[in-house]
């Protein structure tokens, strides 16, 4: 199995005001692999992946040190267009957040803002994206109804379709199943396994079983530090660090 590095974090520190929330993190994520970030809440998992599409730029009074590379490009570099980075690095959020628009418009939005005008190609792309997100069959007869009328699981798959439409190379999932029931969770997990053929996937999850089920690599973060990173199978069966073992066996969390 040949693992090609897609994203690399180097000596990353992150601060909210004076409070340091990430400490000296070095980590690599590989192309066409699912990498999971696990750890107790407040350990900085979400903050960490939000650095990859520069979402933390929106929060005032924050500061990052270190470098993050996407295909060897420093994404915080001076000449880098943040809009382009965000197009290459898609994100699915913790709470399904479809726009208050129709199902169709939710998916076409990303195409329109990226300058695609041709109605025909937008339509094709919308259908293709909904199909890839395993939602097409459920919504094909009500594309022009409000997206807010969909169930939570459907809304989340719509958010995934919306993200796929702009053809990212990396998709960040920030606890995508946190507010979903077990059946919806399962469909999202199956979808992620399918998507890994085409994309590099990073998923933050609370749920250790989920990480075990779908990821190839797992990173364990604790109190802002990377404790351990490795192939999921190894990390779950023979963890190197004592803290990892304690977390996995439920001694804390």
């Amino acid at each position, binding site marked *: 199995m040949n693992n090609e590095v897609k994203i690399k974090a180097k000596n990353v520190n992150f601060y909210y005001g004076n409070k340091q929330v990430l400490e000296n993190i070095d980590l690599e994520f590989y192309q066409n692999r699912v990498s999971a970030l696990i750890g107790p809440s407040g350990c900085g998992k979400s903050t960490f992946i939000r650095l990859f599409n520069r*979402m933390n730029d929106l929060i005032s009074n924050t500061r990052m040190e270190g470098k993050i590379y996407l295909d060897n490009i420093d994404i915080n570099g001076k000449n880098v267009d943040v809009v382009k980075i965000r197009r290459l690095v898609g994100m699915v959020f913790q*709470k399904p*957040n479809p*726009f208050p*628009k129709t199902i169709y418009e939710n998916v076409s*939005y990303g195409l329109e*803002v*990226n300058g695609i005008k041709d109605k025909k190609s937008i339509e094709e792309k919308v259908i293709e994206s909904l199909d890839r997100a395993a939602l097409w069959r459920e919504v094909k007869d009500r594309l022009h109804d*409000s997206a807010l009328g969909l169930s939570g699981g459907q809304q989340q798959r719509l*958010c995934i379709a919306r993200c796929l439409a702009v053809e990212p190379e990396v998709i960040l999932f920030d606890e995508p199943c946190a507010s979903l029931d077990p059946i919806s969770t399962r469909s999202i997990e199956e979808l992620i396994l399918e998507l890994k053929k085409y994309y590099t996937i990073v998923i933050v999850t609370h749920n250790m079983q989920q990480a075990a089920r779908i990821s190839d690599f797992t990173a364990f973060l604790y109190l802002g530090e990377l404790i351990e990173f490795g192939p999921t199978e190894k990390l779950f069966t023979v963890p190197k660090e004592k803290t990892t073992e304690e977390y996995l066996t439920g001694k804390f969390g």
Partner: protein
Amino acid sequence: MKNKITQNLGFFLLFFSIITTLFFLGAIIYFISVNGLKVINWEFLTQVPRKGMTEGGIAPAIVGTFYLTFGAILFSLPLGLACAIYLCEYSPKSYVVNIIRMSINNLAGVPSVVFGLFGLTVFVKFFGFGVSILSGSLTLGIMVLPQIISASQEALLAVPQSYREASLALGATHWQTTKKMVVPAALPGILTGVILSIGRVAGETAPILFTAATYYTRGYPDSVFSEVMALPYHIYALMTEGTHPEKQTEIAYGCSLVLLILVLLVSTLAIVLRQRQRGEL
């Protein structure tokens, strides 16, 4: 037992407050309707005034109020919305911006007659627009600007941050996100602000006293530089000037009723628009 009595007394007081408020609202509507309906007929609504205001209708005042209100909103809505968007979406959260916000709120507290004097000095005299629809609309527009800004600001702040994040995460620029996502989502709230502003603009007398209104015109305004009759000023004039106080009082009630109904109609229209907007989503 004692707690129960206190509770009942409390509820009674709250209920009594509502009854008192409704009583005054009902009384106003009742008196205006009873006195106003006597003079309202087709002629009253469509004719120009005749014989020193004692006969004929008030059509020019209705038209004038419409023009002034329309002009004021036309001026203040784009400007106010732009200010609100800048303050909410673009300006860094800083000391200066806080001062700007406070200043806008203070502007809302300036008495309307002061706006009238300002309009007289600036639009009527300095810019030379004269006593006209243009001067009056601009004065009313400035008066209502803070209200439109703060209503728009609240509507923009109510748009969940997650919409902005989702839009940016798709590679939309800040401007695209604002234009295509945030403002449309805030539109129902912004419309509410406009509704309230329309009511205020249509009913104000003081700002148009020196800038737009005249007691009597033979016909209808033919340009934005014409002076106009307007309902609130007409009511004021009928009650303070002229030679037939009794007749004029009746007409004043008629005018009041027309003004009340006009404002209600416009508000209803805006509410319907807003509901439709919401329903579509």
